[in-house]
């Protein structure tokens, strides 16, 4: 199999890079949906690490964990989209910067 060909560090690096991409996405994008997608990238980055760890530690907890994460992510998506839709009804825009009624 691939045990020796791809060391753990690579997986972790990939995961970290993806995670940072997600963070940067959240920080720089204005579009609600894109921001939301960036967050999903972060979650999936974590999933990569989880699976990789499992693989190298020869355990199964991580896989279970990653399933949970996926479930939760799905739930979050549904709630999140619902919120965005509700918002869009009151204020037809997806630009995040326009939502700053509440501040200071």
């Amino acid at each position, binding site marked *: 199999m691939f045990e020796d060909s791809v060391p753990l560090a690579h997986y972790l690096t990939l995961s970290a890079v993806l*995670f940072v991409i997600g963070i940067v996405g959240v920080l720089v994008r204005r579009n609600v949906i894109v921001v939301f997608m960036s967050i999903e990238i972060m979650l999936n980055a974590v999933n990569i*690490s989880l699976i990789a760890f499992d693989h190298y530690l020869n355990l199964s907890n*991580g896989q279970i964990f990653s399933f949970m994460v996926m479930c939760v992510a799905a739930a979050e998506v549904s709630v*999140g989209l*619902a*919120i965005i839709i*509700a918002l869009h009804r009151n204020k037809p825009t997806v630009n995040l910067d326009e939502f700053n009624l509440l501040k200071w």
Partner: protein
Amino acid sequence: MEPIHAPESIDLIALAPVLVLSVFAMGVLVLDLWAGKNKTLLMFVSLVGLLMTAISAFAKHPIPTFAFTDSYTVDHLSLFFICIFTLSSALTILLSYEYNEREGIKVGEYYSLILLCTVGMILLASSTDMIMIFLGVEIVSICLYVLAGIRRDNKASNEAALKYFLLGAFATGFLLYGMTLVYGSTGSTNLFKIAEFVKSDSAQSNPLLLMGIVLLVIGFGFKVAAAPFHMWAPDVYQGAPTPVTAFMAVGPKAAAFAAFFRVFSEAVPELAPSWEILLSTVAVLSMVVGNLGAIMQTNIKRMLAFSSISHAGYLLIAVISKSSLAGSSLLFYMLSYAFTTFGAFGIIILLGRKGEENLELENYSGLAYKHPLMALSMTVFLLSLGGMPPFAGFVAKFYIFSAAIEEGFLTLVIIAVLNSAISFYYYLKVVVFMYMKEPAGEFNISLTPMTLLVVIIGLIGTIELGIFPDTIISLTTH
């Protein structure tokens, strides 16, 4: 691979509160179909459910019990927290009833969501496995996202939900990543096993583990609204419906603290030298930022949001001190905070008008001479929040400071007391408006019975815990 067993009945009994509450939550949801516009029935059913939950929590003996291969625990900490959760949820429901009538929130899911959220909180407080903790966190969060935005036609409410949702998910990423790294470096998601693993010296300098700890701090820090991860709190507290704000300030926060405390004092106590400094920084920042932020606020909900940030700072001191006193001081603090906060929000709701008006401090001008008892109660709550004897807040703070001093965190305590001095300023500002200014306009307060009940419960709790705290203290110290 071990063979997979069906869950033993003993495990199910341990899980009883969660099960009972889930059933009631579903029940309420279903009942809503027949309930029509009048939600009174739903409210009562929910309250009964919470009561049953609290009772069922005590069904399990002996204590502590570990169920589901050590991933779920029934111990004094969790039992006590369950009490706090059911109490706070019940008070929220009581607060909500008339508020929802007034604001026109006519959705049956509301009560169901609160109950489900409570389920998540119970899971959070009882879990000893990171997967469970994650699930708990998410159940709580998702319910709260919805609750914050439950006033769909209100822009502020929408915005609050959106902000909370985006930032919450963002922070979940950090929390998750932290858990992953901890798992990766220790090989287990179970807190006890992690603790065993961490005892070895080599683990303690593992950068992955330490990184994981940092990320956990961020994740939990966000959930408890500790600085600098607090920025969502003022906006969300302000935008969310007032009962939900009160709920968020108490229940979920307590749950997050329970998990926070569990993870840090049960799983990685050996790493304390490393995370003490992190948490101390966060604690100090929270106190300072919370208090500084609150000083300039004119909206009372927003002010209380900042105040709750500073309270998170005080509570973190308990987490840091992790002594035998720390857990019990955390419990006591949460309980007294629950009474005080619900009382204060109760009064805010009583004074509010349709459309979330009357939330500016000016609206409180001269309250003391129109409604002396209400002003007096508000004063009691605020003083208790500030930590003024003989109210609950003082004993709670005293407790936490004791725990910290016993462990030698003198500097932290000194910073904390100086911060409480600052906090007096803004708490007293409300008193200034109520007592020392002339009334600006008319108050038309409808003394709705449920809300009033919450205020009275809060008042009794605040004073009782302040003057005769012994019973509760001895309960917490088990």
